[in-house]
């Protein structure tokens, strides 16, 4: 069935990705495929490498080994011009929002359009305001980023991320630091976006409720390796103890090695 195969070519394909920060290995042999129109949630504890994975998917960092294909194209082989074109089809909402502090909310949202299109000014402003309606930020167009609350920043960043109608959307920590109601609202919004625009969405989060609400599939990162990738059900039923630890929010019982522990506490001290 070649026709179906072609249609179901993954939007994202990661093969044997290995990355370092300095001497430290952060990601170790990551393999992952994200299908078109799917919501993939990347989960994992703090420091497990989620944001690092995202930076590689965005070509902000260069991997030590392995390769990443987006829309079927190997990103490390793209010319800067092709990468530039591809980036216009990708929307990103960063963990901290990354709104431009010198621009107000509407200008922030309109910014990619002004840079990349020659649309009429009226069209651009209507588009920006439409996206602000979508994320429930109507009426806040003229505020500066410093005047927004945490939840509003995430919404504004999402509005900016979708203003070019991307085919692929990355969302780092949509619900971190938000109250449960606002966080549920954002999840709802992510689902509506996928349904209306058919966009493929990768969400990075460590919030379980949020992950289970929105995910088609979940991949669990731990210490730079993928423990499991599967549907919500499969992940919930996994008998991997580390996955269960994460799901049940148990801290791992790391056995104490008395010698090493003592050494760590007294290392480098004078007279010891």
């Amino acid at each position, binding site marked *: 069935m070649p026709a179906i195969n072609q249609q179901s070519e993954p939007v994202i394909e990661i093969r044997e990705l290995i990355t370092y920060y300095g001497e430290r290995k952060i990601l170790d042999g990551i393999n992952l495929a994200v299908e078109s129109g799917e919501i993939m949630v990347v989960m994992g504890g703090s420091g497990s490498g989620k944001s690092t994975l995202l*930076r590689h998917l*965005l070509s902000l960092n260069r991997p030590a080994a392995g390769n990443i294909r987006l829309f079927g194209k190997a990103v490390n082989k793209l010319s800067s011009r092709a990468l*530039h074109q591809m980036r216009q089809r990708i929307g990103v909402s960063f963990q*901290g929002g*990354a709104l431009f*502090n010198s621009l107000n909310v509407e200008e922030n949202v309109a910014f990619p359009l002004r840079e990349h299109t020659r649309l009429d000014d009226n069209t651009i402003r209507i588009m920006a305001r439409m996206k602000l309606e979508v994320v429930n930020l109507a009426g806040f167009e003229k505020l500066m980023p410093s005047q927004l609350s945490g939840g509003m920043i995430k919404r504004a960043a999402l509005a900016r991320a979708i203003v070019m109608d991307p085919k692929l959307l990355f969302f780092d920590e949509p619900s971190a630091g938000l109250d449960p109601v606002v966080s549920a609202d954002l999840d709802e919004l992510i689902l509506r976006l996928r349904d209306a625009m058919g966009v493929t969405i990768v969400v990075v989060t460590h919030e379980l409720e949020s992950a289970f609400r929105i995910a088609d599939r979940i991949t669990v990162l731990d210490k730079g390796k993928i423990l499991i990738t599967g549907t919500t059900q499969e992940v919930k039923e996994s008998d991997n103890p580390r996955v269960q630890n994460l799901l049940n929010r148990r801290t791992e019982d790391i056995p104490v090695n008395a010698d090493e522990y003592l050494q760590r506490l007294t290392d480098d001290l004078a007279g010891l």
Partner: protein
Amino acid sequence: MTRPAHFIAHTGRVSLAAIEEMGYQFTLFAESLYWLIAGPFVSQPVRLSAVADEMMKIGVLAVPVVVLLSFSNGVMMAIQGIATLQEFDAESQVVPGIAYSVTREFGVLIAAIVVAGRSGSAIAARIGSMQMSQEIDALRVMGIEPVRHLVAPILLAMLLMMPVLTLLADSAALIGGGLYTGIVLKLSLSTFIDRCFDTLAVYDLMQGLVKSLVFGILIALIACSNGFSVTGGSEGLGRATTRSVVLSIAAIVVADMIFTYFLNR
């Protein structure tokens, strides 16, 4: 390690870092030139509005300080010049003395140091805080090259405004020197100016203007590269800002010395 070995290793690391930094600054320069020239052809032009904005911040807003400092400097040179030359009964030679040193050296030096102090810190702080809040990453993933968007307008604005500020500084210093000389030696300002023009050749003015371009490039690159390499929170931002000003001024003075050596042998 023994102390000398330590010292050598440290020196080696510092020199390597310095070379790396200069390499990075050169890359910024080359990329900015690329975008300024080729940008319009790959539909990623450098925005004129951004250039105008930078010209305002770098150049126009610096005018009052540049004029004030240069004027005072002109007066001081006249005072010192007359005092020194009086010993040889050669006070009238103060005019060419001031005219040469202002146009070749001090006009451009004052303009550059003012710009380094004002814009060197402001640019490093602005780019550095954008780096910290991931705004630079955001630009990149939107397909907007930070060098084109941020550095190229600054570089072009420097190249356009530094010569203008230098000419202003030259004029203010000559007027300052002229007024003082006029009062002490009973010389009218217009006579002073006439004599300046008799002494000066285009070459002298050009010397200042060429230097102003080089200094402008140095300030822009040092400020931008320090901004981009901010790490470690607000403390790092403060360090980068200070470093940017100190390094710009040091680079300006050293470059000036090299220029003067080669141009006046």
